[in-house]
């Protein structure tokens, strides 16, 4: 579904990605883990055309989207819940969700809204509240819900666990599994929380300094001693 070939990208003269190759198949949950600053977010943003790739290709369902402007990529069934959630703070929850449906057929709107609110009942209670007043967990739900409003085939999730309490993280990850299983949405999940991410994902990649260092199934990577010592130290298995 998503194929990244030899992707190079960066900001100005600083190169952040040095030739990334990876693939996300239809229906999969694939995770990309790595330390802070490894280039995970840059990869997701480059897939969406901002910043532009300096070399290499991004294919979505076989179509080359490397040179497409960001807003056109969103029209191809790819939705992005970005790092830091980027909720519109001075718009209501409902308006944030409406923004998620910009590329969707307006006739689906109420169906999609129902679907998202069933998944995240908390948002129902907050529908007319400003996005900026929500708690971190609620904002994360809104960011994912907003991304789902466009009926995406592929969902890019950038660190949905960032800054959230462990219980909330668990809840969010359960919901991601549910979205994947019930709504048949392919998920590409970028995480620092390696344990949860690898447990959830079918396959995973490990990124170090802008390169893919390791790849394998979730279980394989979880069992890998190097991964354990680098990313799973400190008893994260809560």
């Amino acid at each position, binding site marked *: 579904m998503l194929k990244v070939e030899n992707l190079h990208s960066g900001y100005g003269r600083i190169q952040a990605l040095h030739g990334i190759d990876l693939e996300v198949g239809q229906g999969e949950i694939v995770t990309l883990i790595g330390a802070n600053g490894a280039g995970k977010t840059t990869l997701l943003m480059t897939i*969406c055309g*901002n910043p532009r790739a300096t070399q290499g290709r991004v294919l979505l369902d076989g179509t080359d989207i490397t040179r497409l*402007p*960001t*807003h*056109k990529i*969103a*029209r191809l069934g790819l939705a*992005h819940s*970005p790092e830091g959630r*980027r909720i*519109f*703070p*001075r*718009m209501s929850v409902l*308006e944030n969700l*409406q*923004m*998620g449906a*910009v*590329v969707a057929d307006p006739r689906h709107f109420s169906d999609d809204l129902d679907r998202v609110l069933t998944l995240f009942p908390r948002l129902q209670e907050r529908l007319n509240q400003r996005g*900026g007043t929500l708690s971190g967990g609620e904002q994360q739900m809104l960011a994912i819900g*907003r991304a789902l409003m*466009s009926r995406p085939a592929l969902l890019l999730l950038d660190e949905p666990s960032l800054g959230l309490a462990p219980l909330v993280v668990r809840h969010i990850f359960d919901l991601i599994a549910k979205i994947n299983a019930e709504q048949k949405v392919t998920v590409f999940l970028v995480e620092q929380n390696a344990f949860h991410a690898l447990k959830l994902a079918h396959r995973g990649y490990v990124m170090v300094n802008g390169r893919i260092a390791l790849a394998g199934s979730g279980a394989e990577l979880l069992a890998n001693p190097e991964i354990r010592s680098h990313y799973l130290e400190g008893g994260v298995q809560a």
Partner: protein
Amino acid sequence: MEYFLQQLINGLTLGAIYGLIAIGYTMVYGIIGMINFAHGEVYMLGAFIALIAYLVSTLVGGQSVALGLMAALLATMLFTGLWGWAIERVAYRPLRGAPKLAPLISAIGMSIVLQNFAQISQGARVKPLPPVIGGGFELMTGDDFTVSLSSLQIVIMVVTVVLMALFTWIITRTPLGRAQRATEQDMKMAALLGVDVDRVISATFVMGAVLASVAGLMVTLYYGVIDFYIGFLAGIKAFTAAVLGGIGSLPGAMLGGLLLGLIEAFWSGYFSIEYKDVAAFSILVLVLLFRPTGLLGRPEVEKI
């Protein structure tokens, strides 16, 4: 009392016009964080286009004033809107992503270009328009003073209120307005969601230009003379109004415009008319000293 009432009416009329122009500044600032210094010139072009359209339509379409005004209104909204679109396309869009100073300088350049264009193509002399909307009401007669409200003043206020209501509705209720607010709050995110940010910005420039063009038409009718230089002071005043109300805020622009109009009218009425601009800008300085974000502006808080 009568005198006070008269100044109030005059101030509100003037303020309505400032407010209409100020909205263009505030909307553009809100969405791309740039002061469009050519906006005063857009208003000036609006006045010229309105005047030309009015004269042409009364020439070919007979003597009907109502028809002429309608033609002037539609023509100036359409063509000034196009100017607004073209200015953004030519002078600002290529500089998106450049350091903030670059579009600002480009705006000042654009302002000079437009001023000179109008001067050369239309001549430097003032263009008169005889009063076309006469009549009015005498509201109150005191000892030696009569308070009058002209039909034109009523037209100006009514048109302003209608446009304000319409634009508030567009911004708060329509998909375009939603996209504008989203782009204003987080441009990158709006693009990720599929919003064509360039188109939204173009629409914002067109909307600002359309409002300024209506202000241009009304000033032409109100004062009866225009020239290529009117955009400068009106632009600075409207910018002041936008800052006074809190730049980036739509109700703020309107409030700032009204306040500025009232300050000028009362100062001219009670003190000296020569110092009305000094008074207006002094108030601006005072407000900014105590409320740097303007009256309805919101403080810039970076939330992490």
